[in-house]
């Protein structure tokens, strides 16, 4: 588990911090995620997908749980002092990272603003489609179609990568 943590903790913590916006909650989510993975190690079929994808999926879901437990919280702002790590400097990886953050951010950047916004609200802020519709003041069907269109466009943009 220590090796797994060393390998993926920066990714995991970066995702949790991006979603939760503060260190303590991000720490708690990352710790809970790695602990649950360790406890379930004998039940996890890692052949189902890449290890990194699996770990980040667990972190994302737990961060969503935290976000949805924050009743009535306002949409958070990204911290300006968030320390960044040069992804090209990642030398820990024995896990294949054919698709990197730069490619995903690039694909997001070319989405129309209204689609990028619903993706951010859904994935990083953990809002449901109903909450997004309420927040933006648009019909629910519009949110559904924007989310589907956004994912379709991302799929095309990232088609040269191994997802």
């Amino acid at each position: 588990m220590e090796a797994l943590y060393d390998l993926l903790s920066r990714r995991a913590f970066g995702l949790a911090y991006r979603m939760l916006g503060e260190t303590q909650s991000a720490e708690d989510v990352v710790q809970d995620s790695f602990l649950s993975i360790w406890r379930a190690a004998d039940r996890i079929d890692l052949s189902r997908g890449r290890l990194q994808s699996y770990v980040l999926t667990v972190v994302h879901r737990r961060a969503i749980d935290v976000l949805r437990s924050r009743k009535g919280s306002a949409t958070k702002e990204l911290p300006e002092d968030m320390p960044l790590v040069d992804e090209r400097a990642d030398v820990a990886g024995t896990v294949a990272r054919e698709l990197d953050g730069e490619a995903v951010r690039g694909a997001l950047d070319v989405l129309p603003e209204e689609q990028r916004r619903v993706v951010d609200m859904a994935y990083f802020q953990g809002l449901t489609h109903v909450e997004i519709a309420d927040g933006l003041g648009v019909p629910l069907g519009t949110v559904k179609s924007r989310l589907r269109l956004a994912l379709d466009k991302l799929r095309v943009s990232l088609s040269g990568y191994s997802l």
Partner: protein
Amino acid sequence: MNCEEFEELSGAYAIGALPDDERLDADGHLASCEKHPEVAELFAVANSLALAAPEMEPPVRLKARLMEAIAESEPVQQRSAPIRTPRRSLGEIISGWFRNARLGYGLAAAMTVLVVGLLAWNVSLQSEDDSGSTFVIQMTGQIGGEVVYEADQKVVFMKLQGVDQLPPDKVYEVWGLDDGRATALGVVAPTNGEVKAAMEFDADTYDAIAVTIEQAPGVDQPTTDPISFGEL
């Protein structure tokens, strides 16, 4: 939920933006409908969004906290029924049983037929095995198959057919049922549409076996209706 309704929700479903009730409906539709192969790609795209978050060095204390928590915690397999990752295929397992029963002659050529015809084969095997300790449980529901229970070893060998791949955040979880109480036996994954798995199982403890779709990496109690079910 019909296909049109599912398609309308598919983006929100893949990115995790559905409320629980709609998500469960969508899970149920996807498990029983083969008309949405693109959804797996949508899930992969949605999962890749995690990479858009810049990496961050976590506080040093976090690793120490985690290692301390692990040291104080018992892994699940020491306090509940464990699952064994099958080290042999079902064919190899059956081959071994036949050798044990001195029925190995011509096995390789007959293996495909034997796997398909487990029930008939079981009758034959039991006629050679006076202990009568091997039973076949027919699994019914959205996913069908057989579970072979070896009472002497207290182990089941599960083979399910027509099992779709699930999104990365979902798993097929197997349960032992005892008068309505469920105990997690483990998580299985299909290969080429089939599940083949072995896990510990005691018919003195459980009276049925079931499979549900749950959030990865598995849950302590089932949250969805069984998609496959068999009674002893």
